[in-house]
């Protein structure tokens, strides 16, 4: 099935490079590395595998590393690819954490972190807006999104019950929408 042979070492180093270079989201870089540079997957295979990774729980790029590792080298490949992907960033983030903990009582560091945290929050707000825009003109979907937002952010309901109620409801709405879409 696989036209290319990929070793454990290549899986590890490929995803190590990807993890270390992926600032502000790894997905665009993942496509470039996997499809264009390393040619592990064709564009069609990449899109299809990404569909699976977005469907399942877990980070999309992390799932992608697991799926690609599994495809070429089984469980060992998955472990090699995922540890490559998160190994470098984990080391960097812990190094930053050590610096933060040693210096967090310094007023300059506190000020700097207040600004950094505010900017990081802005990136997340932008992501929320970008995800919400495609729901325009779909009142049922918007109602579910608002219910989820209210339950988690306002009422502080735990995630598990929120998802157990809203996910089946939302899937039912989507099923009806697909059914009427097919009928037309």
């Amino acid at each position, binding site marked *: 099935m696989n036209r290319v042979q990929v070793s454990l070492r290549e899986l590890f180093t490929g995803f190590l490079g990807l993890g270390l270079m*992926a600032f502000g989201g790894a997905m665009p870089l993942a496509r470039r590395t996997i499809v264009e540079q390393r040619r592990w997957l064709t564009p069609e295979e990449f899109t299809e595998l990404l569909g699976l990774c977005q469907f399942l729980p877990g980070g999309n790029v992390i799932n992608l590393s697991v799926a690609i590792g599994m495809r070429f080298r089984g469980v060992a490949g998955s472990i090699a690819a995922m540890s490559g992907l998160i190994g470098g*960033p984990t080391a960097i983030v812990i190094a930053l954490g050590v610096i933060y903990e040693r210096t967090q009582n310094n007023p300059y560091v506190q000020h700097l972190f207040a600004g950094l945290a505010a900017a990081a929050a802005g990136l997340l707000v932008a992501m929320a807006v970008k995800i919400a825009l495609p729901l325009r003109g779909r009142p049922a979907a918007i109602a579910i*999104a608002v219910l989820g937002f209210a339950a988690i952010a306002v009422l502080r309901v735990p995630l*598990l019950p929120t998802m157990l109620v809203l996910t089946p409801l939302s899937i039912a709405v989507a099923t009806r929408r697909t059914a009427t879409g097919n009928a037309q």
Partner: protein
Amino acid sequence: MTQTLIALALIFGELSLLAFGGGNTTLPEMHRQVVDVHHWMTGTEFSALYALAQAAPGPNLMVVPLIGWHVAGWQGLIVTTVAKMGPSSIITMLVLHAWERFKDRPWRRAVQAGLVPVTTGLVAASALLIAKSADTHWVSWAITGVCAVLTIRTRIHPLWLLLGGSLIGLTGFGQ
């Protein structure tokens, strides 16, 4: 200590299985457990760790090992990372072969489409929560707002925004 590690494993193991739509959907639950339920850190510390993870390269979830390390050192780092990455990865491995069979089924499309509005609500909740923890003054709210608008309207690289926010913060203006 063992109790803390077990609690970390249970919390992040559950989050791993609930992380539909990527890692950011689970931030409010992470915040609720770590700050409100277990009091391992304050809301401000949580938003600072989140900001650190955003400033580092890598996938979305890099705040997870950082929380584990902050709560329980190296053991915490390993326990949270394995608990958060393990269960969802095992599901990915198991489902990979079945995917060929069900990827074109109507129910697969309905489930995937149905998850989108839920994910949207959860990411919006994450954004509000992180902004509320991070923004204590009108200047920090302004930084958040400007960064959000610039990200939506332009193709500016996020690192420039993080750098700009840090520099404005460093001046101490409004703090």
